[in-house]
């Protein structure tokens, strides 16, 4: 009686930005089994970082792991190398790093929301969200000099200072962006058809999220309190800048949207605090020390906990660099969540994971 369809999503599919492949086994479009093939984008960056590039270049190379959270990767790599070389960076650099990470989070979350809207079949909302996202893109460009790949964090600090006029620009543009985000919030919260597509769809329980070790908005939407920004004051002082963890309980696509939107508000607050309390001083502390020993660093990228592990052996080249991307932790949960949902929701669910396969596969 049960008749099964196998539906390929990817490698090339309109609802995907990246090559990944889900083989969804469906019965009447209800997904009963999912199979994932994720390593299309495996390039061998870890290997290249320990053979081709000197340790100072590593943050820039690692930024190319992923275009969406390149600053998180770059910062994490810079931090882990700073740990190995035992360099203390200036407070201003820390603040600037956080500024860019938060701006990046705004653009990434807005992109994800837009993508969820698009994949739910809500084209107008996609357009609206993408239009609003351009503010954050412009800000990132004025701060870092590029729209996507920033190369902002270097070993020892950051490579560009924040000019006062740019700081003022950030303030004015954020003031414009905030009401727009509120408008988006309202649409995402109240639109009837979107709630049909999002509420109760792709849900994961807190227990399952913990069992599968999910991270990021995916876990926080299910109520798992995991946010690295809570824990790493020694490297980046999030807490004193007004960080607050956003949790939801439902764990469905809708809850993930809500978590992301609320995190935008937190990001706005943090940016305001950074701009108000930006300490004067150097932006980098370049030292000639060579990396030695092993260290791990964790940074909260837009998609969740990012971990870099590095080993140095007192040469110009690292001995080992291991990158654990947020999506990598979510793979188990991603495959699991599909089961029992409609295929019609699958693109929206994929988008709501905000998967970053180029991070995962490296």
């Amino acid at each position, binding site marked *: 009686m049960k008749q099964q369809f196998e539906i390929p999503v990817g490698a090339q599919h309109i609802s995907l930005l*990246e090559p990944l492949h889900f083989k969804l086994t469906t019965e009447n479009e209800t997904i009963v089994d999912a199979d994932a093939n994720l390593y*299309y984008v495996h390039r061998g*960056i870890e290997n290249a970082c320990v053979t081709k590039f000197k340790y100072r270049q590593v943050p820039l190379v690692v930024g190319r792991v992923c275009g969406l959270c390149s600053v998180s990767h770059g910062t994490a790599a810079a931090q882990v190398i700073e740990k190995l070389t035992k360099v203390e960076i200036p407070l201003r650099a820390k603040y600037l790093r956080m500024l860019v990470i938060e701006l990046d989070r705004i653009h990434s979350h807005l*992109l994800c929301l837009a993508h969820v809207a698009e994949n739910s079949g809500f084209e107008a909302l996609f357009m609206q969200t993408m239009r609003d996202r351009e503010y954050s893109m412009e800000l990132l460009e004025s701060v870092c000099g590029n729209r996507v790949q920033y190369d902002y964090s270097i070993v020892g600090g950051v490579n560009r200072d924040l000019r006062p006029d740019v700081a003022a620009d950030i303030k004015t543009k954020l003031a414009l962006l905030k009401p727009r985000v509120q408008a988006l919030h309202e649409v995402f919260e109240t639109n009837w058809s979107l709630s049909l597509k999002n509420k109760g769809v792709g849900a994961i329980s807190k227990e399952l999220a913990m069992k599968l070790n999910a991270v990021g908005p995916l876990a926080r939407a299910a109520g798992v309190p995991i946010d690295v920004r809570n824990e790493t004051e020694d490297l980046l002082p999030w807490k004193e800048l007004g960080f607050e963890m956003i949790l939801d309980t439902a764990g469905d696509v809708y809850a993930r949207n809500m978590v992301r939107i609320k995190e935008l508000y937190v990001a706005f607050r943090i940016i305001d605090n950074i701009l108000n309390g930006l300490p004067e001083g150097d932006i980098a502390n370049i030292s000639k020390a060579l990396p030695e020993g092993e260290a791990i660093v964790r940074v909260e990228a837009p998609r969740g906990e990012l971990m870099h592990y590095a080993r140095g052996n007192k040469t110009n080249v690292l001995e080992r660099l291991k990158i654990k991307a947020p999506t990598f932790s979510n793979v188990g949960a991603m495959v699991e969540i599909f089961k029992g949902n409609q295929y019609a929701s699958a693109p929206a669910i994929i988008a709501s994971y905000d998967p970053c396969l180029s991070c995962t596969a490296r």
Partner: protein
Amino acid sequence: MFELKKFRKKSPWILHFNAGGCNGCDIEILACLAPKYDIERFGMINTGNPKQSDILLITGPVTKRTRERLVEVYNQMPEPKVVVCCGSCASTGGIFRGMYNIEGGVDQFIPVDVYVAGCACRPEQIIDGVVVALGILEEKTKEIEKTIKLANKPVVEEDGQVNRRNMPAELTYETTV
């Protein structure tokens, strides 16, 4: 004279393929669709379907796992078609060149018409690249374009029907010791 050729320029439908890039260029392509850049004013539609597309936008260097998919998708596009490489990696391999799982630029596999530089390439650059591609598209003939690697010959059957089903060749694996 009424020429169908000139309408190629006015209705280019694009297909986007990520061959293993970092998403940077991909989100810029997405940004192109959005209100600020709005490429639909040139009549472009992101079809997501190789069979109805004229322009193949490729981002990222070709990895070992995507190369066959790339060739497959390229072969399903009906001629005339143009290929635009978005970003340095797609053009040459970029920073990833020489990494062990990278084959290099897209032009190792399929004939490329336009290279758009940049890491990541900006939406304005993408639009520029596509506009250049349109000029090339207008000049192209309807002859079958073969890929450079992984190419079989199309089979012409006795009554003139061409079987392109097996044009993307299976990869023959060398056993490395």
